[in-house]
């Protein structure tokens, strides 16, 4: 019995691996350069984590269902440009939201239908739609758009007391996503699809509809990320977001404990992952690492972090298997 309790605590520690990782990184950062953990900088880290977090939440659900979605890379650009162009052509904010969010949903619908109905693997489908979206964005945007909308500005860069509104919004969206993941059948079925697709099919889960919904969800998150970006950045070029945002988001998801083989992933972990990615970028900025080496260090930090986590997991497995045998 004692053994089993020991094993449980191991398992519980592992559940918080992303959070532990965050703590370790913050601790190391504090030693290296105290400016990093200054309150104002930490707020920056959080604000800069918001678009990553939103895209990552979409990516998490897709990964949980055993798929992958590359299209948010330029999907964010497309939605941002749609919003900006609507506003600049004299449309109301509501109109702009409809276009922007509509764009994300249509993108998700396209992905979902091609994957679900035509049966083309998600990797190729979303890679192809990424290319298509890039073309569409360029067709639509011929230059940098400068958006000044008080509501969007407040959303992107205002703050409520000491807390930036963007962070509040992401908190709210995350709470909703927690609800969706835990309390709707959409969430349940997404996990089922990723963990054992055959079982889900045999249980009567409508597979095509479920897949369409999953990619629409990802498209919706893409669009929300675009809304926040437009609010915060205001200067929208057709290359806003792009591959680097997507890679950050997927890295965040995986650091947060989502398995890319489906079935596993949590909102809390994903958010932590987003903060970690944002923090690592921030640390490199604050330390003034040479631009040529930034990518190198980012890659190195991520590899070290994941290796530590994987090593930890292996240790834990060994401990637990020794415990039961």
């Amino acid at each position: 019995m004692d053994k089993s309790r020991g094993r449980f605590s191991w398992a519980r520690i592992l559940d918080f691996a992303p959070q532990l990782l965050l703590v370790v990184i913050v601790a190391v950062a504090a030693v290296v350069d105290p400016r990093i953990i200054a309150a104002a900088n930490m707020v920056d880290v959080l604000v800069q984590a918001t678009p990553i977090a939103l895209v990552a939440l979409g990516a998490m659900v897709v990964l949980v269902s055993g798929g992958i979605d590359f299209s948010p890379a330029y999907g964010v650009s497309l939605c941002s440009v749609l919003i900006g162009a609507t506003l600049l052509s004299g449309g109301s904010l509501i109109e702009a939201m409809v276009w922007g969010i509509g764009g994300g949903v249509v993108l998700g619908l396209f992905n979902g239908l091609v994957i679900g109905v035509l049966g083309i693997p998600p990797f190729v489908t979303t890679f192809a739609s990424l290319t298509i979206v890039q073309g569409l964005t360029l067709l639509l945007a011929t230059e940098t758009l400068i958006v000044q909308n008080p509501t969007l500005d407040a959303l992107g860069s205002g703050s409520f007391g000491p807390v930036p509104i963007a962070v509040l919004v992401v908190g709210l969206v995350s709470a909703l996503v927690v609800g969706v993941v835990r309390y709707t059948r959409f969430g349940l079925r997404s996990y089922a699809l990723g963990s054992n697709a055959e079982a889900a099919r045999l249980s009567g889960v409508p597979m095509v509809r479920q897949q369409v919904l999953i990619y629409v969800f990802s498209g919706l998150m893409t669009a929300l990320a675009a809304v926040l970006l437009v609010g915060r950045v205001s200067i929208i070029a057709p290359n806003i977001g792009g591959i680097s945002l997507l890679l950050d988001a997927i890295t965040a998801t995986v650091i947060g404990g989502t398995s890319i083989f489906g079935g596993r992933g949590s909102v809390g972990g994903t958010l932590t992952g987003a903060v970690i990615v944002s923090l690592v970028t921030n640390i490199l900025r604050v330390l003034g690492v040479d631009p040529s080496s930034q990518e190198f260090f980012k890659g190195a930090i991520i590899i070290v972090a994941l290796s530590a986590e994987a090593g930890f997991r292996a240790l834990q497995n060994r401990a637990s298997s020794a415990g039961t045998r």
Partner: protein
Amino acid sequence: MKEHSPQSGDDRRWSRRAFLKRAGMTLTLPAISGGIAACGPFAGGGGQSESQGGDEGAVGQGNKTLGFAMINLTLPFFVRMQEAGGEAAKDYNVRTVWQSADGNIENEIAIAERYVQQEQDVILIDPVDAKAFEPVVRQAEEAETPVVTMGNKVEAGWNFNTLYPDYENMATVARALATALDEKGQIAFLVGSRGNYVSDTREAGFKETIEQEFPDIELVSVQPTDFDTAQAQAAVETWLTTYPDLAGIASVSDPLVLAAMNAAENAGRDDILYAGHDGDAEMHPMLKDGSMVIDVLTGAERVGYWNVAVGARIAKGEKFNKELFMPTYFVMADDMASRLADRGLEVDAVTPEEATETAQSYAEEFGPDQPSSAMSVG
């Protein structure tokens, strides 16, 4: 602060009708693509008919074709460049083809090689790297296809280089910013991405000038942005909290400066001086109110128009030197220019108003009615 919020009179570019047309297109295209996807393996025809129209137009008029091999067509500068290039093509009655390498150097070479194969009349390359394009220029030489390399000097003998003095211009920008700051204090610099020739050259010009000539100016940080305004904004946000005394921000490209201003505005900072490059019209209000010290007018539109003009003239048999220089202008408000002059820095600059005129009058500056000599200074 509000008065220099970077809102410009750009609404004209975004008429409601144009937007609806474009947005409509954006949403119908997936449907069309889907349609193509549904009708089976002969969709190759979809792409084909699309272009035939274009081809016919070209062949029908019997005019020359210029092939552009670009690093990237998604960046704002290139987007504008291509737009103005289109105008030039109309004025010069040539057809232009613009293809993007998406940042991949092998792709760009492949595009250039295909242009040789396709017997384009002139090939214009915006080279990721000067060395790497020597082999393909030699290929073009064998096919006797003229080549113009843009913005980055390729020494292969055969090609024309269309250049503007990036390094020197950025050195002047550095001097202007430093002088405006009384030659002391902390500044930071936003670059595009490492390995990008234009960004690297401008960075070197700026950085080396500051280091050599202004010992009391501290360049605290250089951040890469991938030319993405969102990343630029994030970098500046970090600076503003990490370096509370930051007094100046410069960048290799104007949209990044806009993002920096936006970040500063959000942080409630209105005491920072900016300096940029490109000469975008959006910067004029800030030049006038004194928050922006200096800008360099190359002008994406001018660059686009100029290169097409040079290409078209070469195609039609005009003779040029191997190196052509496009006149660039420093843009400064009058009071800023006199302030700097008081402190001993004379910069031969135009006012924002003049710059607007110059930037928009590229069609006259490099139009078909001009003599060959108008294509280059010096």
